[in-house]
Protein backbone atom coordinates (compact mmCIF):
# COMPACT_ATOMS: atom_id res chain seq x y z
CA UNK A 1 0.00 0.00 0.00
CA UNK A 2 0.94 3.62 0.28
CA UNK A 3 4.12 4.60 1.96
CA UNK A 4 4.06 6.51 5.25
CA UNK A 5 3.81 10.26 4.95
CA UNK A 6 5.07 12.79 7.46
CA UNK A 7 2.90 15.81 8.10
CA UNK A 8 4.15 18.65 10.25
CA UNK A 9 1.43 19.76 12.66
CA UNK A 10 2.30 23.26 13.84
CA UNK A 11 4.12 25.37 14.96
CA UNK A 12 1.43 27.77 13.77
CA UNK A 13 -1.86 25.93 13.75
CA UNK A 14 -5.45 27.10 14.26
CA UNK A 15 -6.13 24.90 17.27
CA UNK A 16 -2.83 25.58 18.98
CA UNK A 17 -2.58 28.80 20.93
CA UNK A 18 1.13 28.13 21.33
CA UNK A 19 3.83 26.94 18.98
CA UNK A 20 4.78 23.29 19.13
CA UNK A 21 5.39 21.05 16.20
CA UNK A 22 4.30 17.45 16.00
CA UNK A 23 5.69 15.49 13.11
CA UNK A 24 2.92 13.04 12.42
CA UNK A 25 3.87 9.85 10.64
CA UNK A 26 0.76 8.85 8.75
CA UNK A 27 -0.45 5.71 7.07
CA UNK A 28 -3.15 7.29 4.91
CA UNK A 29 -5.45 8.98 7.46
CA UNK A 30 -4.19 7.11 10.51
CA UNK A 31 -1.38 8.38 12.70
CA UNK A 32 1.34 5.78 13.17
CA UNK A 33 3.51 7.80 15.51
CA UNK A 34 4.26 11.37 16.42
CA UNK A 35 7.54 13.11 17.09
CA UNK A 36 7.41 16.34 19.07
CA UNK A 37 9.65 19.21 18.00
CA UNK A 38 9.91 21.81 20.72
CA UNK A 39 12.09 24.83 21.39
CA UNK A 40 9.92 27.51 19.83
CA UNK A 41 9.28 29.04 23.24
CA UNK A 42 12.56 28.19 24.92
CA UNK A 43 13.88 31.26 26.70
CA UNK A 44 16.45 29.97 29.17
CA UNK A 45 14.71 31.10 32.30
CA UNK A 46 16.53 28.66 34.57
CA UNK A 47 19.80 30.40 33.77
CA UNK A 48 18.35 33.86 34.28
CA UNK A 49 17.01 32.81 37.68
CA UNK A 50 20.58 32.07 38.77
CA UNK A 51 21.61 35.60 37.88
CA UNK A 52 18.93 37.36 39.89
CA UNK A 53 18.47 37.27 43.62
CA UNK A 54 15.94 34.96 45.17
CA UNK A 55 13.35 37.67 45.84
CA UNK A 56 13.49 38.94 42.27
CA UNK A 57 13.10 35.34 41.14
CA UNK A 58 9.62 35.24 42.68
CA UNK A 59 8.40 37.60 39.98
CA UNK A 60 10.46 35.99 37.25
CA UNK A 61 9.04 32.57 38.14
CA UNK A 62 5.51 33.86 37.65
CA UNK A 63 6.39 34.57 34.04
CA UNK A 64 7.11 30.90 33.34
CA UNK A 65 3.46 30.64 32.51
CA UNK A 66 0.72 33.20 32.40
CA UNK A 67 -2.04 30.70 33.10
CA UNK A 68 -0.87 29.12 36.33
CA UNK A 69 1.41 31.97 37.42
CA UNK A 70 0.29 32.08 41.02
CA UNK A 71 0.91 28.39 41.65
CA UNK A 72 4.40 28.70 40.18
CA UNK A 73 5.29 31.45 42.63
CA UNK A 74 3.57 29.53 45.42
CA UNK A 75 5.65 26.41 44.85
CA UNK A 76 8.82 28.45 44.58
CA UNK A 77 8.01 30.32 47.79
CA UNK A 78 7.29 27.07 49.60
CA UNK A 79 10.67 25.77 48.50
CA UNK A 80 12.49 28.87 49.73
CA UNK A 81 10.56 28.74 53.01
CA UNK A 82 11.48 25.12 53.50
CA UNK A 83 15.18 25.98 52.96
CA UNK A 84 15.04 28.84 55.44
CA UNK A 85 12.86 27.04 57.97
CA UNK A 86 10.00 29.53 57.77
CA UNK A 87 6.35 28.79 58.42
CA UNK A 88 3.95 31.28 56.87
CA UNK A 89 1.09 32.36 59.15
CA UNK A 90 -2.24 30.50 58.81
CA UNK A 91 -4.03 33.42 57.16
CA UNK A 92 -1.39 33.50 54.43
CA UNK A 93 -1.87 29.77 53.87
CA UNK A 94 -5.60 30.25 53.38
CA UNK A 95 -5.12 33.22 51.07
CA UNK A 96 -2.73 31.10 49.01
CA UNK A 97 -5.38 28.41 48.71
CA UNK A 98 -8.02 30.93 47.63
CA UNK A 99 -5.84 32.39 44.88
CA UNK A 100 -4.62 28.94 43.79
CA UNK A 101 -8.16 27.71 43.39
CA UNK A 102 -9.25 30.84 41.52
CA UNK A 103 -6.34 30.19 39.20
CA UNK A 104 -7.34 26.56 38.79
CA UNK A 105 -10.89 27.57 37.92
CA UNK A 106 -9.88 30.12 35.31
CA UNK A 107 -7.39 27.67 33.84
CA UNK A 108 -9.92 24.82 33.63
CA UNK A 109 -12.55 27.06 32.06
CA UNK A 110 -9.92 28.20 29.59
CA UNK A 111 -8.94 24.62 28.83
CA UNK A 112 -12.44 23.30 28.23
CA UNK A 113 -13.21 26.45 26.26
CA UNK A 114 -10.23 25.89 23.97
CA UNK A 115 -11.27 22.27 23.63
CA UNK A 116 -14.73 23.40 22.55
CA UNK A 117 -13.06 25.64 19.98
CA UNK A 118 -10.88 22.74 18.83
CA UNK A 119 -13.86 20.50 18.08
CA UNK A 120 -15.65 23.35 16.38
CA UNK A 121 -18.22 24.48 18.94
CA UNK A 122 -17.39 28.17 18.91
CA UNK A 123 -20.51 29.29 20.73
CA UNK A 124 -19.64 27.13 23.74
CA UNK A 125 -16.07 28.48 23.68
CA UNK A 126 -17.42 32.02 23.88
CA UNK A 127 -19.85 31.16 26.68
CA UNK A 128 -17.21 29.41 28.78
CA UNK A 129 -14.81 32.30 28.38
CA UNK A 130 -17.49 34.76 29.38
CA UNK A 131 -17.96 32.82 32.60
CA UNK A 132 -14.20 32.85 33.07
CA UNK A 133 -14.22 36.65 33.02
CA UNK A 134 -16.09 36.68 36.34
CA UNK A 135 -13.17 34.86 37.93
CA UNK A 136 -10.72 37.24 36.29
CA UNK A 137 -12.72 40.08 37.83
CA UNK A 138 -12.44 38.46 41.25
CA UNK A 139 -8.67 38.18 40.83
CA UNK A 140 -8.39 41.75 39.67
CA UNK A 141 -10.49 43.00 42.58
CA UNK A 142 -8.34 41.16 45.10
CA UNK A 143 -4.86 41.75 43.66
CA UNK A 144 -5.06 44.48 41.06
CA UNK A 145 -3.88 42.24 38.24
CA UNK A 146 -5.69 39.82 35.99
CA UNK A 147 -2.96 37.40 35.08
CA UNK A 148 0.29 38.02 36.94
CA UNK A 149 -0.92 38.37 40.50
CA UNK A 150 2.49 38.95 42.07
CA UNK A 151 1.06 38.42 45.53
CA UNK A 152 2.90 35.34 46.68
CA UNK A 153 6.37 35.80 48.14
CA UNK A 154 8.66 33.83 50.44
CA UNK A 155 7.29 34.16 53.97
CA UNK A 156 3.64 34.56 53.09
CA UNK A 157 1.66 36.82 50.80
CA UNK A 158 2.04 40.52 50.03
CA UNK A 159 -1.58 41.49 50.11
CA UNK A 160 -4.56 40.73 52.30
CA UNK A 161 -8.14 40.25 51.11
CA UNK A 162 -10.50 42.27 53.25
CA UNK A 163 -13.88 40.84 54.31
CA UNK A 164 -15.82 42.80 51.72
CA UNK A 165 -13.75 41.38 48.91
CA UNK A 166 -14.12 37.89 50.35
CA UNK A 167 -17.86 38.45 50.10
CA UNK A 168 -17.37 39.64 46.52
CA UNK A 169 -15.59 36.38 45.69
CA UNK A 170 -18.55 34.45 47.13
CA UNK A 171 -21.08 36.39 45.06
CA UNK A 172 -18.88 35.87 41.99
CA UNK A 173 -18.92 32.15 42.63
CA UNK A 174 -22.72 32.18 42.76
CA UNK A 175 -22.80 33.77 39.29
CA UNK A 176 -20.17 31.40 37.96
CA UNK A 177 -21.98 28.36 39.31
CA UNK A 178 -25.27 29.50 37.85
CA UNK A 179 -23.74 29.97 34.41
CA UNK A 180 -21.82 26.72 34.62
CA UNK A 181 -24.96 24.81 35.51
CA UNK A 182 -26.31 25.91 32.14
CA UNK A 183 -23.15 25.26 30.12
CA UNK A 184 -21.80 22.04 31.53
CA UNK A 185 -24.76 19.83 30.49
CA UNK A 186 -24.14 21.04 26.93
CA UNK A 187 -20.46 20.21 27.18
CA UNK A 188 -20.99 16.81 28.76
CA UNK A 189 -24.27 15.53 27.33
CA UNK A 190 -24.50 16.95 23.84
CA UNK A 191 -24.63 14.27 21.17
CA UNK A 192 -22.21 15.87 18.74
CA UNK A 193 -19.73 16.78 21.48
CA UNK A 194 -19.74 13.20 22.65
CA UNK A 195 -19.16 12.07 19.09
CA UNK A 196 -15.93 14.05 19.04
CA UNK A 197 -14.69 13.16 22.54
CA UNK A 198 -15.81 9.68 23.57
CA UNK A 199 -13.35 6.95 22.77
CA UNK A 200 -10.85 9.37 21.24
CA UNK A 201 -7.26 9.41 22.45
CA UNK A 202 -7.56 6.59 24.93
CA UNK A 203 -4.79 6.29 27.51
CA UNK A 204 -5.06 3.22 29.70
CA UNK A 205 -4.06 3.26 33.35
CA UNK A 206 -0.92 1.16 32.92
CA UNK A 207 0.49 3.33 30.10
CA UNK A 208 -0.45 6.50 31.94
CA UNK A 209 1.51 5.41 34.99
CA UNK A 210 4.51 4.11 33.08
CA UNK A 211 4.78 7.24 30.98
CA UNK A 212 4.48 9.46 34.02
CA UNK A 213 1.20 11.22 33.26
CA UNK A 214 0.17 13.82 35.82
CA UNK A 215 -2.85 15.91 36.69
CA UNK A 216 -6.21 15.55 34.95
CA UNK A 217 -4.58 13.39 32.27
CA UNK A 218 -3.60 10.83 34.89
CA UNK A 219 -6.80 11.15 36.88
CA UNK A 220 -8.93 10.56 33.81
CA UNK A 221 -7.10 7.27 33.33
CA UNK A 222 -7.97 6.08 36.82
CA UNK A 223 -4.87 7.14 38.76
CA UNK A 224 -5.94 8.78 42.01
CA UNK A 225 -3.12 11.27 42.25
CA UNK A 226 -3.61 14.82 43.43
CA UNK A 227 -0.88 16.48 45.45
CA UNK A 228 -3.43 18.68 47.18
CA UNK A 229 -4.50 15.63 49.18
CA UNK A 230 -0.94 15.60 50.53
CA UNK A 231 -1.86 18.86 52.24
CA UNK A 232 0.48 21.70 51.36
CA UNK A 233 -0.56 25.29 52.20
CA UNK A 234 -3.94 24.98 53.95
CA UNK A 235 -5.23 22.09 51.83
CA UNK A 236 -4.72 19.69 54.75
CA UNK A 237 -7.49 21.42 56.70
CA UNK A 238 -9.83 21.70 53.74
CA UNK A 239 -10.01 18.06 52.70
CA UNK A 240 -9.44 17.47 48.99
CA UNK A 241 -10.46 14.31 47.19
CA UNK A 242 -8.94 13.48 43.80
CA UNK A 243 -11.53 13.45 41.01
CA UNK A 244 -11.02 10.17 39.19
CA UNK A 245 -12.53 8.89 35.95
CA UNK A 246 -11.61 5.56 34.42
CA UNK A 247 -12.23 5.80 30.69
CA UNK A 248 -9.02 7.62 29.81
CA UNK A 249 -10.40 9.29 26.69
CA UNK A 250 -10.82 12.96 25.84
CA UNK A 251 -14.31 12.92 27.33
CA UNK A 252 -13.01 11.62 30.68
CA UNK A 253 -10.34 14.32 30.78
CA UNK A 254 -12.97 16.97 30.15
CA UNK A 255 -15.21 15.48 32.81
CA UNK A 256 -12.38 15.52 35.35
CA UNK A 257 -11.88 19.21 34.68
CA UNK A 258 -15.57 19.98 35.01
CA UNK A 259 -15.78 18.11 38.31
CA UNK A 260 -12.68 19.89 39.54
CA UNK A 261 -14.27 23.22 38.71
CA UNK A 262 -17.10 22.48 41.11
CA UNK A 263 -14.63 21.08 43.64
CA UNK A 264 -12.50 24.25 43.48
CA UNK A 265 -15.58 26.33 44.06
CA UNK A 266 -16.34 24.36 47.20
CA UNK A 267 -12.74 24.67 48.38
CA UNK A 268 -12.82 28.45 47.97
CA UNK A 269 -16.13 28.64 49.83
CA UNK A 270 -14.82 26.47 52.64
CA UNK A 271 -11.55 28.43 52.84
CA UNK A 272 -13.42 31.73 53.02
CA UNK A 273 -15.66 30.28 55.70
CA UNK A 274 -12.85 29.24 58.01
CA UNK A 275 -10.06 31.73 57.19
CA UNK A 276 -8.36 32.77 60.45
CA UNK A 277 -7.40 36.35 61.28
CA UNK A 278 -3.81 37.34 61.83
CA UNK A 279 -0.66 38.45 60.04
CA UNK A 280 -0.09 37.59 56.38
CA UNK A 281 3.67 37.15 56.27
CA UNK A 282 6.66 36.48 58.46
CA UNK A 283 9.80 38.61 58.29
CA UNK A 284 13.09 36.87 57.62
CA UNK A 285 16.73 37.79 57.38
CA UNK A 286 18.30 34.49 56.43
CA UNK A 287 19.41 33.45 52.96
CA UNK A 288 18.40 30.20 51.29
CA UNK A 289 20.90 27.42 51.82
CA UNK A 290 20.89 23.74 50.91
CA UNK A 291 18.80 21.75 48.50
CA UNK A 292 15.09 21.23 48.34
CA UNK A 293 12.56 19.54 46.09
CA UNK A 294 9.08 21.02 46.30
CA UNK A 295 5.95 19.85 44.53
CA UNK A 296 2.47 21.26 44.15
CA UNK A 297 -0.62 20.57 42.10
CA UNK A 298 -1.17 22.90 39.19
CA UNK A 299 -4.28 22.94 37.02
CA UNK A 300 -2.40 20.69 34.59
CA UNK A 301 -0.83 18.47 37.20
CA UNK A 302 2.16 18.11 39.40
CA UNK A 303 4.90 20.73 39.22
CA UNK A 304 8.33 20.01 40.68
CA UNK A 305 10.85 22.60 41.77
CA UNK A 306 14.42 21.76 42.58
CA UNK A 307 16.17 24.62 44.36
CA UNK A 308 19.78 24.76 45.47
CA UNK A 309 21.01 27.68 47.52
CA UNK A 310 24.43 28.48 48.91
CA UNK A 311 23.69 30.98 51.66
CA UNK A 312 23.86 33.99 49.36
CA UNK A 313 21.24 36.05 47.56
CA UNK A 314 21.64 34.00 44.40
CA UNK A 315 20.37 30.52 43.94
CA UNK A 316 22.90 28.09 42.60
CA UNK A 317 20.38 26.11 40.59
CA UNK A 318 16.70 26.33 39.92
CA UNK A 319 14.98 23.61 37.97
CA UNK A 320 11.33 23.39 37.09
CA UNK A 321 9.61 20.26 35.84
CA UNK A 322 6.22 21.43 34.69
CA UNK A 323 3.14 19.25 34.19
CA UNK A 324 3.02 19.47 30.40
CA UNK A 325 6.64 18.34 30.25
CA UNK A 326 5.54 15.13 31.96
CA UNK A 327 2.46 14.84 29.76
CA UNK A 328 4.34 14.83 26.45
CA UNK A 329 5.21 11.08 26.52
CA UNK A 330 1.58 10.12 27.37
CA UNK A 331 0.22 12.27 24.53
CA UNK A 332 2.51 10.49 22.09
CA UNK A 333 0.92 7.23 23.24
CA UNK A 334 -2.56 8.71 22.71
CA UNK A 335 -1.75 9.91 19.21
CA UNK A 336 -0.52 6.54 17.96
CA UNK A 337 -3.41 4.97 16.07
CA UNK A 338 -5.74 7.97 16.06
CA UNK A 339 -7.12 9.70 12.99
CA UNK A 340 -5.54 12.84 11.60
CA UNK A 341 -8.70 14.87 12.20
CA UNK A 342 -8.62 14.01 15.90
CA UNK A 343 -5.05 15.16 16.53
CA UNK A 344 -6.08 18.69 17.44
CA UNK A 345 -8.67 17.56 19.95
CA UNK A 346 -6.30 15.05 21.55
CA UNK A 347 -3.48 17.56 21.93
CA UNK A 348 -5.78 20.18 23.42
CA UNK A 349 -7.39 17.61 25.73
CA UNK A 350 -4.24 17.40 27.87
CA UNK A 351 -4.37 21.21 28.14
CA UNK A 352 -0.83 21.73 26.88
CA UNK A 353 1.15 24.67 28.14
CA UNK A 354 4.20 24.92 25.95
CA UNK A 355 5.74 27.96 27.57
CA UNK A 356 5.74 26.02 30.85
CA UNK A 357 7.34 23.06 29.14
CA UNK A 358 10.24 24.89 27.58
CA UNK A 359 10.70 27.73 30.04
Amino acid at each position, binding site marked *: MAKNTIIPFGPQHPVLPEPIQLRLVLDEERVVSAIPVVGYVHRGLEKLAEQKDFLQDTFLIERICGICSFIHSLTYSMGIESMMGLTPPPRAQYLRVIWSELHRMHSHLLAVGLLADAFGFENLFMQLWRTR*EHIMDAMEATTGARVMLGTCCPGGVRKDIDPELLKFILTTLVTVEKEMDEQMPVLLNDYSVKQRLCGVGILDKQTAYERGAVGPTARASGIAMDLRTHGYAAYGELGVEPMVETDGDCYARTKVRVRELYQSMNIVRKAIGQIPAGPINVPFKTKPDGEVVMRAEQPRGEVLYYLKGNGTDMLERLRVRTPTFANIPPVLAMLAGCELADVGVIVISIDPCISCTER
Partner: protein
Amino acid sequence: MFNAVSKSPWVVHFNCNSCNGCDIEFLACLTPHYDVERFGILHIGNPKHADVLVVTGSVNNRNARVLQNVYNQIPDPKVVVAMGVCTSSGGVFAGCYNILGGVDIVIPVDVFVPGCPPRPEAMIDGIVKAVGILERKRKGEVFPTAPKPTHTFKPSEEQSAEKTVIKEEKTV
Protein backbone atom coordinates in the same frame (compact mmCIF):
# COMPACT_ATOMS: atom_id res chain seq x y z
CA MET B 1 -16.01 46.20 -1.66
CA PHE B 2 -12.47 47.14 -0.75
CA ASN B 3 -13.80 48.80 2.37
CA ALA B 4 -14.25 45.30 3.73
CA VAL B 5 -10.56 45.13 4.60
CA SER B 6 -10.72 47.83 7.21
CA LYS B 7 -14.35 47.31 8.17
CA SER B 8 -13.72 43.67 8.91
CA PRO B 9 -10.02 42.98 9.34
CA TRP B 10 -9.06 39.39 10.00
CA VAL B 11 -6.45 38.73 12.62
CA VAL B 12 -3.90 35.94 12.81
CA HIS B 13 -2.18 35.43 16.11
CA PHE B 14 1.33 34.07 16.47
CA ASN B 15 2.81 33.27 19.87
CA CYS B 16 6.51 33.84 19.46
CA ASN B 17 8.12 33.33 22.83
CA SER B 18 5.44 34.48 25.13
CA CYS B 19 4.62 33.21 28.61
CA ASN B 20 0.93 32.82 27.64
CA GLY B 21 -0.11 35.82 29.67
CA CYS B 22 -0.56 38.02 26.60
CA ASP B 23 -2.04 35.18 24.57
CA ILE B 24 -4.85 34.43 26.93
CA GLU B 25 -5.54 38.13 27.33
CA PHE B 26 -5.68 38.46 23.56
CA LEU B 27 -8.07 35.52 23.35
CA ALA B 28 -10.11 37.11 26.14
CA CYS B 29 -10.45 40.18 23.88
CA LEU B 30 -12.26 38.03 21.34
CA THR B 31 -14.78 36.64 23.79
CA PRO B 32 -18.08 38.28 24.75
CA HIS B 33 -16.89 40.32 27.72
CA TYR B 34 -14.54 42.50 25.63
CA ASP B 35 -15.72 41.41 22.20
CA VAL B 36 -13.46 42.82 19.51
CA GLU B 37 -15.77 41.16 17.02
CA ARG B 38 -17.96 44.24 17.31
CA PHE B 39 -15.31 45.96 15.18
CA GLY B 40 -15.69 43.21 12.62
CA ILE B 41 -12.43 41.68 13.72
CA LEU B 42 -12.26 37.94 13.26
CA HIS B 43 -9.61 35.62 14.65
CA ILE B 44 -8.41 33.32 11.91
CA GLY B 45 -5.94 30.46 11.85
CA ASN B 46 -4.54 30.87 8.38
CA PRO B 47 -2.05 33.68 7.73
CA LYS B 48 -3.05 33.80 4.05
CA HIS B 49 -6.55 34.94 5.06
CA ALA B 50 -5.35 37.61 7.45
CA ASP B 51 -4.81 41.36 7.35
CA VAL B 52 -3.47 41.92 10.85
CA LEU B 53 -0.71 39.92 12.54
CA VAL B 54 -0.77 39.92 16.32
CA VAL B 55 2.54 38.85 17.82
CA THR B 56 3.19 38.14 21.47
CA GLY B 57 6.55 37.47 23.06
CA SER B 58 10.11 37.99 21.96
CA VAL B 59 12.12 36.26 19.28
CA ASN B 60 14.35 33.29 19.97
CA ASN B 61 16.71 31.36 17.78
CA ARG B 62 14.18 28.82 16.60
CA ASN B 63 11.05 30.87 16.05
CA ALA B 64 12.57 33.87 14.21
CA ARG B 65 12.29 31.99 10.92
CA VAL B 66 8.72 30.90 11.67
CA LEU B 67 7.68 34.46 12.45
CA GLN B 68 9.24 35.65 9.20
CA ASN B 69 7.35 32.92 7.31
CA VAL B 70 4.02 33.78 8.88
CA TYR B 71 4.59 37.46 8.11
CA ASN B 72 5.54 36.78 4.49
CA GLN B 73 2.42 34.69 3.94
CA ILE B 74 0.06 37.52 4.87
CA PRO B 75 -1.05 39.36 1.73
CA ASP B 76 -0.40 43.10 1.39
CA PRO B 77 -1.50 45.48 2.78
CA LYS B 78 -0.83 44.16 6.27
CA VAL B 79 -0.19 45.55 9.72
CA VAL B 80 1.61 44.08 12.70
CA VAL B 81 0.53 44.62 16.29
CA ALA B 82 3.10 43.65 18.92
CA MET B 83 1.46 42.81 22.24
CA GLY B 84 3.31 43.07 25.50
CA VAL B 85 6.65 44.35 26.62
CA CYS B 86 8.48 41.20 25.49
CA THR B 87 7.82 42.11 21.87
CA SER B 88 9.73 45.36 22.21
CA SER B 89 12.75 44.32 24.22
CA GLY B 90 12.44 40.81 25.62
CA GLY B 91 10.84 42.17 28.78
CA VAL B 92 11.57 40.24 31.92
CA PHE B 93 13.48 37.69 29.85
CA ALA B 94 15.79 40.25 28.26
CA GLY B 95 18.94 38.70 29.73
CA CYS B 96 18.19 35.10 28.72
CA TYR B 97 20.68 33.30 26.48
CA ASN B 98 18.11 32.20 23.95
CA ILE B 99 16.41 35.57 23.50
CA LEU B 100 17.43 37.60 20.46
CA GLY B 101 15.32 40.65 21.28
CA GLY B 102 12.02 42.20 20.31
CA VAL B 103 10.04 41.16 17.23
CA ASP B 104 11.03 44.38 15.47
CA ILE B 105 14.41 42.83 14.63
CA VAL B 106 12.63 40.36 12.34
CA ILE B 107 9.53 42.12 11.01
CA PRO B 108 8.38 45.75 10.85
CA VAL B 109 5.96 46.60 13.63
CA ASP B 110 3.15 49.12 13.27
CA VAL B 111 1.75 49.26 16.79
CA PHE B 112 3.38 48.36 20.09
CA VAL B 113 1.09 47.68 23.03
CA PRO B 114 3.14 47.82 26.24
CA GLY B 115 2.30 45.99 29.44
CA CYS B 116 3.05 42.68 31.12
CA PRO B 117 0.50 41.62 30.07
CA PRO B 118 -1.39 44.58 28.58
CA ARG B 119 -4.96 44.93 29.73
CA PRO B 120 -7.54 43.77 27.17
CA GLU B 121 -8.72 47.37 26.80
CA ALA B 122 -5.21 48.38 25.75
CA MET B 123 -5.06 45.49 23.30
CA ILE B 124 -8.36 46.51 21.71
CA ASP B 125 -7.07 50.06 21.45
CA GLY B 126 -3.93 48.74 19.75
CA ILE B 127 -5.86 46.67 17.24
CA VAL B 128 -8.21 49.54 16.43
CA LYS B 129 -5.20 51.79 15.85
CA ALA B 130 -3.72 49.15 13.58
CA VAL B 131 -6.94 49.00 11.59
CA GLY B 132 -6.66 52.75 11.01
CA ILE B 133 -3.15 52.25 9.69
CA LEU B 134 -4.38 49.38 7.52
CA GLU B 135 -6.95 51.65 5.93
CA ARG B 136 -4.32 54.26 5.12
CA LYS B 137 -1.92 51.61 3.81
CA ARG B 138 -4.68 50.35 1.55
CA LYS B 139 -4.91 53.81 0.03
CA GLY B 140 -1.27 53.55 -0.87
CA GLU B 141 0.22 55.59 1.95
CA VAL B 142 3.69 54.53 3.05
CA PHE B 143 3.83 54.15 6.77
CA PRO B 144 6.95 54.29 8.93
CA THR B 145 7.38 51.54 11.54
CA ALA B 146 6.34 52.40 15.06
CA PRO B 147 8.88 53.77 17.51
CA LYS B 148 9.61 51.52 20.47
CA PRO B 149 7.82 52.34 23.71
CA THR B 150 9.88 54.87 25.64
CA HIS B 151 9.97 52.73 28.77
CA THR B 152 11.82 49.96 26.97
CA PHE B 153 15.17 49.49 28.61
CA LYS B 154 18.24 48.60 26.66
CA PRO B 155 20.25 45.55 27.71
CA SER B 156 23.17 47.78 28.74
CA GLU B 157 20.98 49.50 31.30
CA GLU B 158 19.58 46.21 32.41
CA GLN B 159 21.08 46.09 35.89
CA SER B 160 20.10 49.60 36.98
CA ALA B 161 16.68 49.38 35.38
CA GLU B 162 15.91 46.12 37.12
CA LYS B 163 16.87 47.47 40.51
CA THR B 164 14.48 50.38 40.25
CA VAL B 165 11.68 48.08 39.18
CA ILE B 166 12.18 45.83 42.18
CA LYS B 167 12.24 48.79 44.55
CA GLU B 168 8.91 49.94 43.22
CA GLU B 169 7.42 46.53 43.68
CA LYS B 170 8.53 46.35 47.30
CA THR B 171 7.04 49.68 48.27
CA VAL B 172 3.64 48.87 46.79
